[in-house]
């Protein structure tokens, strides 16, 4: 079971959350071209390793939070609010990989 540290509620079980997908994609401005919108909807990195993603604390504070999680080990490195700039451990130059 993932234990997700909600910035508002503290550490809670995965069962309280609903996964909401890759948090690295940003909705383009309304006047962006078709290719940009196509990539926003369909292009995904799908990494085997660290992944920045949205989780909705649906049975808690109902905030959307960002989570840096490893898709191979299910380890969670960090969490934050929607505006936080989270970094993957392998991009920090740290020892985790």
């Amino acid at each position, binding site marked *: *079971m*993932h234990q997700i540290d909600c910035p508002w509620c503290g550490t809670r*079980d*995965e*069962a309280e959350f*609903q*996964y909401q*997908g*890759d948090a690295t994609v940003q909705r383009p401005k309304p006047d962006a071209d078709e290719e940009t919108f*196509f990539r926003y*909807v*369909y*292009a*995904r990195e*799908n990494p*085997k390793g660290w*992944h920045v*993603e949205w989780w909705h604390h649906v049975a808690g504070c109902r905030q959307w939070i960002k989570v840096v*999680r490893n*898709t*191979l*080990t*299910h380890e969670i490195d960090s969490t934050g609010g929607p505006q936080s700039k989270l970094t993957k451990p392998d991009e920090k130059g740290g020892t985790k990989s």
Partner: protein
Amino acid sequence: MHYSALSVFLQGLKGHKGWPRMWRDPQPKSHYDVIIIGGGGHGLATAYYLAKEHGITNVAVVEKGWIGGGNVGRNTTIFRSNYMFPANTHFYEKGMKLWEGLERDFNFNAMISQRGVINLFHSDPQRDAFARRGNAMRLAGVDAEFLSPAQLKDMVPILDFENARFPIQGGLMQRRGGTIRHDAVAWGYARGADSRGVDILQNCEVKDIIIEGGAAVGIETSKGTIRANKVAMAVAGHTTHVAKMAGLELPVESHVLQAFVSEGIKPLIDTVVTFGAGHFYISQSDKGGLVFGGDLDGYNSYAQRGNLPMMEHVMAGGMAIMPAIGRVRLLRHWGGIMDMSFDGSPFICKTGIEKLYLNGGWCYGGFKATPASGWCFAHTIAKDEPHKLNEKFTIERFREGRMIDEKGVGPNPWIQ
């Protein structure tokens, strides 16, 4: 060696010590006509049909681990063709017809059992939706049958028909659907391909796809460089990564799906029942174990193991519709990695890179598609153009707005 009752008898006289191995363990040649990356069900079936239907036998199936060690050995062994959209209906029905003749075709006992697949419904709108799908199937020449609660009570008496939240109003049944021994599917195709000259290269990891002049010309592997006229990918959960070796970016995410087997019990259920409203489906193996599963865990994963919340959810679904299984103990469970596409439908297509072909995006429906997938992929590779049955399963369909979204839930892979 041809398998038959006589061969079993004759081998029996020799204490069953004379059986030859089912496929060779060859060293890679420097060049093949076709390389298939991925020795799972789809890769092996593709090699089999390339050799059998198109006479292309200078073929290598390259597998990182051992054949049949991925999703073809990690599913719940069900096959069916109960889809509504024409592209799916005809494709899966081709698969159904191939399943029906498969054991005779590849001379291997795969313990096929057309025990029927029943989808339960619980409300008027769900009944209407199922009736619509059943009618679409019948118009396409596929069998579909509407069952009343009384008929269902005869067939599957242990269901909780008076469930407070999901009272059973009836079911949509495909009698030709059923189960088949999944390992035997992999082995049967492997043996059939090998006997026609296909090299099955196990423990051979692909490191890179060699592209020259806009065309795929070979692969780099842990056993050296192998060149080929054509390169084909059929790697399920790792589709993104293998495609990236060729510079392709695909609308695919990898997700984990769990399945479960109970201890063996006496015969309890002799068909396949799906309780979609409760995210639960079940059948019983010939050994007596209840084989069941539910939905994806719901987050990107390559872990090949699931998590407890979804396990609890699946068990709760089982308890809701079939309370009698409450004291049956769980024997084992596992997770497989699904290459989830953004509309729930697969890819069997050319890629934009010459001589490079893609088979993937099977979501959690890959096993039942194995024969049709291999048959269509072999055609696509051999003729360098798709068969009519798979011409809609392209990568470009997302750009063109031609999604085949059977569930109609939008472009979110984890809810397909």
